[in-house]
């Protein structure tokens, strides 16, 4: 029973594997199906780099076993740009200098994708609070917050924030 048959739909594609029960969802994504966009920073649920959507809700993939995601739908950062076309949020990150080294970016994008879906008009405080679960050591968060607010505005159909 330490080996478990597991079927997970990732970015719309179904994957069936027999996995060790102790395999985390993060390692499943990276090593079993070779989606290395999900990054592992701390492996104990502090940094948020490994954040993915599980059935539409953000979760730390280092704190879930792959078997727990059996029959679930997972969205990783690769799923945000299915045909290589960047999402509005991803483009806003580029335009607003929302990343430097890029290690935390997959988790940031997933968390903010969930936030913008739930709250199309977030305040700066909403954005900062959502990001408390994601650590960035490069940017000081200013560019990321700006990118999130800019993306929210673009998604609502407004023009891009001036001076960004």
């Amino acid at each position, binding site marked *: 029973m*330490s080996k478990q048959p597991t079927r997970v739909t990732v970015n719309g594609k179904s994957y069936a594997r027999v996995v060790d*029960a102790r395999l985390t969802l993060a390692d499943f994504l990276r090593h079993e199906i070779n989606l290395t966009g999900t990054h592992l920073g701390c492996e104990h649920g502090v940094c948020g780099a490994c954040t993915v959507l599980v059935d539409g809700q953000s979760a730390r993939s280092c704190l879930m076993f792959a078997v727990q995601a059996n029959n679930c739908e997972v969205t990783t950062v690769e799923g945000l740009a299915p045909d290589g076309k960047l999402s509005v949020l991803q483009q806003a990150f580029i335009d607003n200098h929302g990343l430097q080294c890029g290690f935390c970016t997959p988790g940031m994008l997933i968390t903010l994708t969930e936030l913008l879906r739930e709250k199309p008009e977030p305040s700066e405080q909403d954005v900062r609070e959502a990001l408390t679960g994601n650590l960035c050591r490069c940017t000081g968060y200013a560019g990321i917050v700006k990118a999130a607010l800019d993306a929210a505005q673009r998604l609502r159909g407004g023009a891009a924030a001036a001076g960004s």
Partner: protein
Amino acid sequence: MKPAPFDYHAPRQLNEATELLAKLPNAKILAGGQSLVPMMNFRYVIADHLVDLGGLQELRGIAVADGHLRIGAMTRQRDLEFSADIAKHCPLMSEALQHVGHRQTRNRGTIGGSLAQADPAAELPAICAAYDATIHVASVRGMRQVGYRDFTTGFMSTALQSDEMIAAVDLPIWPASHGHGFHEFARRHGDFALAGAAALLDIGADNVVRKAALTLFGVNALPLRVDAAETRLTGQRLDASAIRTAAASAWLIEPISDIHASGEYRRHLAQVLSLRALNDAARRAGVQA
């Protein structure tokens, strides 16, 4: 940073789960996994068996009945956060949930898991202490009810036996006119608090306090009810001086010192946060103190 191997069990019903817990040696219960899995990744916890309660739909949900809220142990913290019933009947919990971890952990974390983990700085155990919650504990021997004061037995310790699990939590509903207040201090939003205070006030005619509950957390091994403050407030006419005196009772606690804060600092925080929580509770109960 990989957990040691274990056998995985995914029961679909409560009796299956309790039978597994009775039978399996060195088994751990996996609820939301937001505390257990980090400890497993560090190998602080090495379990031979993991019993995953994720498939037990019967343990999820919030119901209102007979003057109390019944919350299934596997109800996610995010579900509590967005519950209209919780917001209406137990607004103190809604407010406290804003401070529980981060959205990514609240999406997975459960109320039963929080209570079983019993971290002294955690918000949900403090809320259960504030309401004198009743914990429904399941095992192959049946269901037993434990009051929250008896449920916590020490630092991160509970009255749960190794073959027992939390099935549900009952919170008594206070009168609709009651007021609540919740304040905590943490270095960063979402961190465990250095200290926190939760206040409930039920106020009758002439602003006389019918019932009061003041709970501190993060200051000691267990969430702490400030009995002295509650006794002082009950039957008193509520005004600024009564609130100040009650909050000052927090001075009586003997908080822990650790690398995060000294006991003296925690005692200071306990008083300041008690005052803020009681003031909020008074204001929400319609008293301008």
